[in-house]
């Protein structure tokens, strides 16, 4: 066969050009289709161009010996080469036998090789740049193709689990295997994500980050270090893992020394990864949807689909094949039955009631699960003893259990509903999906709530960084003064409303002070270290003084000034104490905190926010004083002791002394404050004096004092004071940032737990691991042990275990897919706050792959009935996409809304996470563009955009509606044409019979000579008919057209006579003829809907044209065969 003779070569050339032409045709049509999504409306035009192109082929392939000079210019050669390459790439798509393809490929290749070589030589000779570029591009494309092929080759080496999946496929069919291919695809996606995150975030951070600038992020405390590698610690993602690139908190917020902008990169990389996930899913979905056209209805052609796509060609196992056959038969029977009694809807009250009941049950189960999750999270934020494993893991355990157990309930409940199995399956899927989403979301919301409280705590603990910056800004603005008023306006409003109340409260001071002195003894021994408990105490302290205020309403103005003086002093002091409380173990000072709180209240700040404000400010100032003043001030013994961090041992008596000597010490400390520009004493007095003067101003003053600590008003003029204070603050803050490592032990410990981003990541990581563990356990118990039990106990059991009750488990595709989707959702949710989660997930998916495939192959049996709901490919991806979208929402919320913790993670110091990007952007862009961006981000653009989108959507929707209508119309029209056609056909046949009868008689009578002639033509016709199909068709069509014209031409008569003759003498041929012409009509009209519209009653030229086209078409058809 390979030996091609010279004589054959001619034929080969023809064949070659024909094949090439066909390839081109297909390519062009497919290209057009992809571009416009419909077939070329005018086939003739396309054909003409193709013919032109094919002529190129004949010449190009024909001139094997002809040199290039003869064949034409370089452009032509280029063109031809390109065409040949197209042939090469398109040959795969052709439904030809391989040897034909091979021949084609060889020819094309030899042509390319020959001509390309010559071309190269020629190009090498000339010196013009254009040629050089052409040469280079030629070379590059060649290399590129080679590389691409090699890459593809490499790729197939790398595809994992191919054999495994194949085995599963052959045992269980494509439905079960689709789970594994999905799993593999997910694995790839996760691999890419993990690679990106590691390469751009984790590794640069490890290599280039400055550990000195990292502060507390990368240091483990000594006691943490002790247990850092214990299994339990690792299990909770504490210890080593917590201080590793696994979690958000570990990353620094400083650019590395080499100029790598770590925080920005962290942000951008995560953004890229999310976008990549979206794109990957969408691409896959588009790919899948290209494989099968959209259907309007699920079960449009039930029988055809069952018949033509029922068999799964991948099945290679006898049992599975048997099952498959059975399921197909069942499907057919079911469909037949359905067809038989289509609309037989029995409205059974019992069933309806049952369904209602089931739905209620499902909803309550869903509610229960959400409640449980919320409750668990709330419990977890309470204090508990550290070593209780259950308490540590209850969230994860409960959530995982819910995801595994509730579906079983749903299944049982679903059985009660007595729906059709397919519908039941779908309902089940929907319910599980809702359950998963609900769980995740309730977890997220609960976590966000927890985060809220954590940020509150954080703000309280926040010693330096943020406040300093805050102050800095204020300092700049303070000159204006108005700004300050603005910031304080809210507070002033609150206060201004109840001036009298404030007076009352100032009055309280008298009463509360004695109380305060009483309180300490009670609280001394309480080891209260926590914010929570502290708050509780606040509350306790809050209430009693309030009562007093209303009791002692009378003597307001008397001793007010003096008392307030005292109070403010105490405030100073107690704020110091406060700081100590936070930082040290000293229990005694909690009481002083009480004091401060009561004082706060008495000063008229009844709202919680203001107190917290005050609290913040005071702590800040304390911080500053701690570093400096305390060290210097030797007069207050306890204070000095706190500085040295040995406060743990301070006895209660000491503290008592302290309280007694409060006024004195206060004066001392206040003096010191004076030295540091905090004039507390004088200030307080000023306040009081102003207080008496004007209600409005006085309130503002007070607020300023509260907000800015006492230092605001050392002098009578408040404006000036504010300024001073802020300057001081600046200096202290710089000190503090450096000394943050000097934070006391307890604060550090507490801070560690307060990094909410890490907590979030940990929670999800724990969930992921727990999910894996549970899935292993459940696979083992439900599938493996059950299978073992059934297998080995069957011989000694009273019923058939394999056939009846426990049976072997079957692989629940849909639920398992949902499980994967859910898992992936968790990863996407946690990814931002723990880059290592993706790697963990990679591991998990790998394990799952092996586990599931092992379980399926060892202990599952193939399905008996297969339903479509779990099979269509895009269904899974749609689920995944929904999941991704829903999971990105909370992350987006965290990015744009929540305040990142100030002591950990790459975004500390920013008010919102996304500021890291916007600030970089505004820094790097010139002013005009910045203004443009600002404008674009403003409602001026956004709202019109939204409106525009809405309009477009509306337009699209209406367009689809009308298109659908058109579709239906066309369908109806097609049917109509069809019936019309058929009727016409019958009419024609009948008419022809009559006509031929008449004409034949007439002709016979009038022109006896012609009859002889006609028989001759008839004979010729017969020969023609016998010769080829094509001619037959052509003839028949023209015949019909002429017949329908009903013109009494001689020719037509002649023809009619011929056909009549045929009819008479050769009935089978005639019938065949009619059938053929009918066929040709049919095939034409089915080919493209344009043709039926051509008027039949047109002139002869038209009919000629038509017949030619018909013949061409039939020619094509025969060629295809």
């Amino acid at each position: 066969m390979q030996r091609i003779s010279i004589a054959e070569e001619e034929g080969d050339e023809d064949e070659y050009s024909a094949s090439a032409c066909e390839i081109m045709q297909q390519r062009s049509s497919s290209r057009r289709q992809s571009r416009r999504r419909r077939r070329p409306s005018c086939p003739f035009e396309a054909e003409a161009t193709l013919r032109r192109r094919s002529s190129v082929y004949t010449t190009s392939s024909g001139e094997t010996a002809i040199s290039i000079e003869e064949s034409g210019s370089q452009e032509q050669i280029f063109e031809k080469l390109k065409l040949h390459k197209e042939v090469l790439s398109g040959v795969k798509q052709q439904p030809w036998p391989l040897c034909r393809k091979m021949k084609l490929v060889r020819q094309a290749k030899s042509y390319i090789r020959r001509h390309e070589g010559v071309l190269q030589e020629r190009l090498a000779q000339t010196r013009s740049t254009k040629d050089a570029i052409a040469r280079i591009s030629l070379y590059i494309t060649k290399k590129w193709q080679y590389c691409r092929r090699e890459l593809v080759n490499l790729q197939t080496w790398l595809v994992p689990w191919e054999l495994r999946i194949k085995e599963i496929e052959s045992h269980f069919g494509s439905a079960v295997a689709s789970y594994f291919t999905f799993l593999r695809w997910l694995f790839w996606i996760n691999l890419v994500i993990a690679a990106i995150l590691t390469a751009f975030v984790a590794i640069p951070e490890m290599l280039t980050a400055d550990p000195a600038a990292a502060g507390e992020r990368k240091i483990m405390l000594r006691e943490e270090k002790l247990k850092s590698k214990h299994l339990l610690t690792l299990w909770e993602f504490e210890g080593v893992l917590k201080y590793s690139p696994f979690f958000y908190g570990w990353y620094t917020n400083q650019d590395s020394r080499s100029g790598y902008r770590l925080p920005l990169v962290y942000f951008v990389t995560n953004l890229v990864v999310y976008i990549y996930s979206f794109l990957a899913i969408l691409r896959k979905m588009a790919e899948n949807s290209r494989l099968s056209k959209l259907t309007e209805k699920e079960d449009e052609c039930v029988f055809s689909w069952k018949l033509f796509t029922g068999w799964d060609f991948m099945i290679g196992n006898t049992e599975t094949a048997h099952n498959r056959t059975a399921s197909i038969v069942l499907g057919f029977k079911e469909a037949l039955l359905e067809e038989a009694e289509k609309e037989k809807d029995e409205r059974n009250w019992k069933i309806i009631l049952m369904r209602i009941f089931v739905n209620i049950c499902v909803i309550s189960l869903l509610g229960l699960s959400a409640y449980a999750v919320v409750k668990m999270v709330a419990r977890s934020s309470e204090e508990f003893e550290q070593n209780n494993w259950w308490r540590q893991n209850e969230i994860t355990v409960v959530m995982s259990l819910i995801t595994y157990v509730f579906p079983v309930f749903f299944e049982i409940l679903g059985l009660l509903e007595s729906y059709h199995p397919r519908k039941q399956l779908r309902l089940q899927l929907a319910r599980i999906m809702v359950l998963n989403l609900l769980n995740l979301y309730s977890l997220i919301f609960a976590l966000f709530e927890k985060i809220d409280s954590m940020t509150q705590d954080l703000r309280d603990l926040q010693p330096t960084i943020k406040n300093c910056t805050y102050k800095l800004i204020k300092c700049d603005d303070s000159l204006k003064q108005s700004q300050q008023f603005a910031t304080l306006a809210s507070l002033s409003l609150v206060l201004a409303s109840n001036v009298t109340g404030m007076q009352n409260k100032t009055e309280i001071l008298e009463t509360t002070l004695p109380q305060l002195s009483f309180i300490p003894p009670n609280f001394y021994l309480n080891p209260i270290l926590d914010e929570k408990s502290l708050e509780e105490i606040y509350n306790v302290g809050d209430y009693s003084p309030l009562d007093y205020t209303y009791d002692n309403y009378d003597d307001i103005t008397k001793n007010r000034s003096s008392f307030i003086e005292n109070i403010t002093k105490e405030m100073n002091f107690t704020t110091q104490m406060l700081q100590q409380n936070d930082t040290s173990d000293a229990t005694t000072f909690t009481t002083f905190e009480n004091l401060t709180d009561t004082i706060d209240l008495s000063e008229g700040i009844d709202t919680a926010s203001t107190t917290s404000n005050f609290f913040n400010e005071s702590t800040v100032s304390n911080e500053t004083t701690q570093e400096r003043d305390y060290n210097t001030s030797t007069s207050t013994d306890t204070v000095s002791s706190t500085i040295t961090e040995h406060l743990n041992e301070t006895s209660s008596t000491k503290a008592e002394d302290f309280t007694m000597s409060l006024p004195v010490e206060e004066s001392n400390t206040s003096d010191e404050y004076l030295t540091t520009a905090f004039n507390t004493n004088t200030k307080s007095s000023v306040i009081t004096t102003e207080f008496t003067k004007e209600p409005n101003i006085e309130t503002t003053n007070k607020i300023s004092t509260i907000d800015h600590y006492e230092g605001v008003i050392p002098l009578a003029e408040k404006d000036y004071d504010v300024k001073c204070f802020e300057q001081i603050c600046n200096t202290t803050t710089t000190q503090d940032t450096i000394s943050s490592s000097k934070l006391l032990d307890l604060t550090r410990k507490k801070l560690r737990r307060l990094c909410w981003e890490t907590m979030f990541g940990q929670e999800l990581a724990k969930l992921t691991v727990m999910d894996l563990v549970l899935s292993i356990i459940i696979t083992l118990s439900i599938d493996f042990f059950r299978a073992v039990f059934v297998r080995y106990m069957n011989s000694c059991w009273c019923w058939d275990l394999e056939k009846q009750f426990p049976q072997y488990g079957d692989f629940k595709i849909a639920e398992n897919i949902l499980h994967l989707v859910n898992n992936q959702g968790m990863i996407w949710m946690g990814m931002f706050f723990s880059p290592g989660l993706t790697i963990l997930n990679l591991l998990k998916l790998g394990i799952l792959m092996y586990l599931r495939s092992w379980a399926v192959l060892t202990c599952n049996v193939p399905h008996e009935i297969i339903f479509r709901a779990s099979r269509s490919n895009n269904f899974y991806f749609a689920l995944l996409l929904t999941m991704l979208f829903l999971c990105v929402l909370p992350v987006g919320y965290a990015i744009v809304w929540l305040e990142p913790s100030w002591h950990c993670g790459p975004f500390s110091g920013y008010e919102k996470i996304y500021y890291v990007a916007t600030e970089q952007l505004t820094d790097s862009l010139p002013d005009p563009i910045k203004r443009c961006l600002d404008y674009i981000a403003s409602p001026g653009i956004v709202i019109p955009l939204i409106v525009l989108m809405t309009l477009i959507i509306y337009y699209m929707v209406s367009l689809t509606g009308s298109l659908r209508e058109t579709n239906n119309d066309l369908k109806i029209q097609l049917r109509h044409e069809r019936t019309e056609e058929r009727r016409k056909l019958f009419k024609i046949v009948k008419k022809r019979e009559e006509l031929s009868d008449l004409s034949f008689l007439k002709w016979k009578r009038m022109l006896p000579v012609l009859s002889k002639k006609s028989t001759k033509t008839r004979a010729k016709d017969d020969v023609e008919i016998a010769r080829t199909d094509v001619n037959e068709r052509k003839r028949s069509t023209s015949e019909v057209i002429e017949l329908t014209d009903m013109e009494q031409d001689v020719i037509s008569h002649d023809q009619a006579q011929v056909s009549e003759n045929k009819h008479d003498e050769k009935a089978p041929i005639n019938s065949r003829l009619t059938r053929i012409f009918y066929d040709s009509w049919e095939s034409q009209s089915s080919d493209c809907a344009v043709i039926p519209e051509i008027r039949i009653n047109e002139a002869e030229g038209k009919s000629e044209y038509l017949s030619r086209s018909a013949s061409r078409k039939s020619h094509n058809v025969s060629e295809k065969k």
Partner: protein
Amino acid sequence: MGNKIATFTEEQLEDYQDCTFFTRKEILRIFKRFRDMGDPGAVPRSMTPQQASTLRIPLSCLTRIPELKENPFRQRISEVFAKCQSSGLSTSVASDEGICFEEFLEMMSVFSEQAPRDLKVFYAFKIYDFDEDGVLGLNDLERTCRQLVQDDLNADEVATVCRKVLEESDIDGDGVLSYLEFEHVVTRASDFMATFHIRI
């Protein structure tokens, strides 16, 4: 990689890669299957281009591939792919029965995952077209149905099913399914691509 050079020449492999949807590794894997399929010793380790298209192993050997063994249309499939050769214009020297490596490769290529939808549909049509008249007539449908359900449906039911199929998909109402009609129906079935597939 040493095996590759021993089996095919580089050029051959390139050509095969151009003509099918396989990569080098897969072609070699298919060759291995082909060798396993034939009687031991029937297929040499290395293949010249000559042998690839002429050396035939009997069709009955195809049943050694599990997928084809269970497939109700195995007879038809082997017919379609083995006959391709003789229907081509080239001289078919070999005996009618038997399948050569190139045909086998072609078959696997059609059933591979990368094969485009149109190609698959084309061959599916060929497979279901038992009498090879270019259309799926009632006869073809009945045979398809019978082979698919393997005598679990009685004649009446089979006839009903075929009638229903025609009702659904015979758009022009001529009593047979043309290729276009077949394509129209099959491409809209969501799992055709998944099921018309043999993994190598």
